[in-house]
């Protein structure tokens, strides 16, 4: 169990390096946010249009948010020890840059809002699904009796209040898992469906006005 000394030293150095990087990063963020507030106020005073200021402020926030996520994702990829779990984590983390960039573009190009909304809402459903899968994969791979067995050994439960009036709780085990899975997948199907209906009803497709 003897760790090589140079490896040890390198670990200490990289830990230190990370700490310095983090401090510098926090400092830069604070400076940028103060500068942002001042410049937004200055623009307002010089009678710039409201949407112009909004683009500017939102753009700066996006530029601050995206590197954080990319750093996180890079860290995960550097320590890619449990690919089956981390795959889902990375997909969830990517929600931030996708949402942020997408919203900024929607803000900037007003006529394209519907296209950007479509992308965003579909990704949202995908993230929910990935989160559910992340939990099930963890239980399946890293806990001994396996997912179905764990659930099967749970005491029978009841629905939470308003649902308990209409619905009977499924048997713990496979039926319970099926309920959860279908519940989550229902959203993954429904969201793109309603969004695409909206997409085709919107101009230039939905020219008919009521």
């Amino acid at each position, binding site marked *: 169990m003897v760790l090589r000394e140079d490896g040890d030293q390198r670990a200490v150095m990289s830990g230190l390096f990370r700490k310095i990087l983090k401090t510098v990063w926090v400092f830069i963020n604070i400076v940028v946010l103060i500068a942002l507030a001042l410049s937004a106020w200055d623009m307002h005073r010089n009678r710039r249009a409201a949407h112009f200021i909004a683009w500017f402020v939102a753009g700066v926030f996006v530029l601050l948010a995206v590197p954080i996520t990319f750093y996180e994702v890079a860290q995960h990829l550097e320590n*890619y020890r449990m690919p089956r779990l981390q795959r889902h984590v990375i997909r969830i983390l990517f929600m931030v840059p996708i949402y942020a960039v997408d919203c900024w573009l*929607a803000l900037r190009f007003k006529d394209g809002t519907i296209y950007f909304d479509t992308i965003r809402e579909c990704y949202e459903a995908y993230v929910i699904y990935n989160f559910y899968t992340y939990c099930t994969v963890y239980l399946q791979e890293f806990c001994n009796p396996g997912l179905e067995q764990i659930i099967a050994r749970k005491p029978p439960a009841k629905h939470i209040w308003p649902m308990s009036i209409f619905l009977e709780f499924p048997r713990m085990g496979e039926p319970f898992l099926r309920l959860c899975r279908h519940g989550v997948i229902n959203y993954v199907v429904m969201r793109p469906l309603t969004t695409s209906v909206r997409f085709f009803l919107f101009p230039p497709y939905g020219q008919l006005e009521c």
Partner: protein
Amino acid sequence: MYGDGQILNPLVAYPYLALLNNVSQAWAMYCLIIFYRATYQELAPIRPFYKFCTVKAVVFLSFWQGQTLLFMVKMQWIKVSQRETKTDYDAAEVATAMQEFLICVEMFFAAIAHSYAFPPSEYFGTFIFGISICALTVCLYGLCVHRCSDSDGTAYDGQHKGHVRPA
């Protein structure tokens, strides 16, 4: 024909689609909650609570924020005098733009929250004899949790096989 935000107009598609979305979203959320309620003991090593909170906060709060803004337009709490503010936005477009602007700002905080909820350090760890320390701690923690649940009477010989690296 779509009628964005016209929640009380039965002739356009919007109220139906919104209702469908709401029901489906609420059902998905409810399923996640009952799943969490059933398995939180086993999920404890990966700190599911923060993960649930961050993911839900981003997805569901952004949705309800949009609905609130549309409601505010409906109640005419958001008004636009286009001449004064030098824009070509109408009230509904202002609500959408506000939603997008708020999401841009929130994503900054969401990025920070994500870095705490899904830390890469969970998967760090030096490999000693092919066993990751991190997986080992997960394994030990899992054993402790199962001990506790054993003493509560819900007995099973749950042992984490955390050191097994999935291919």
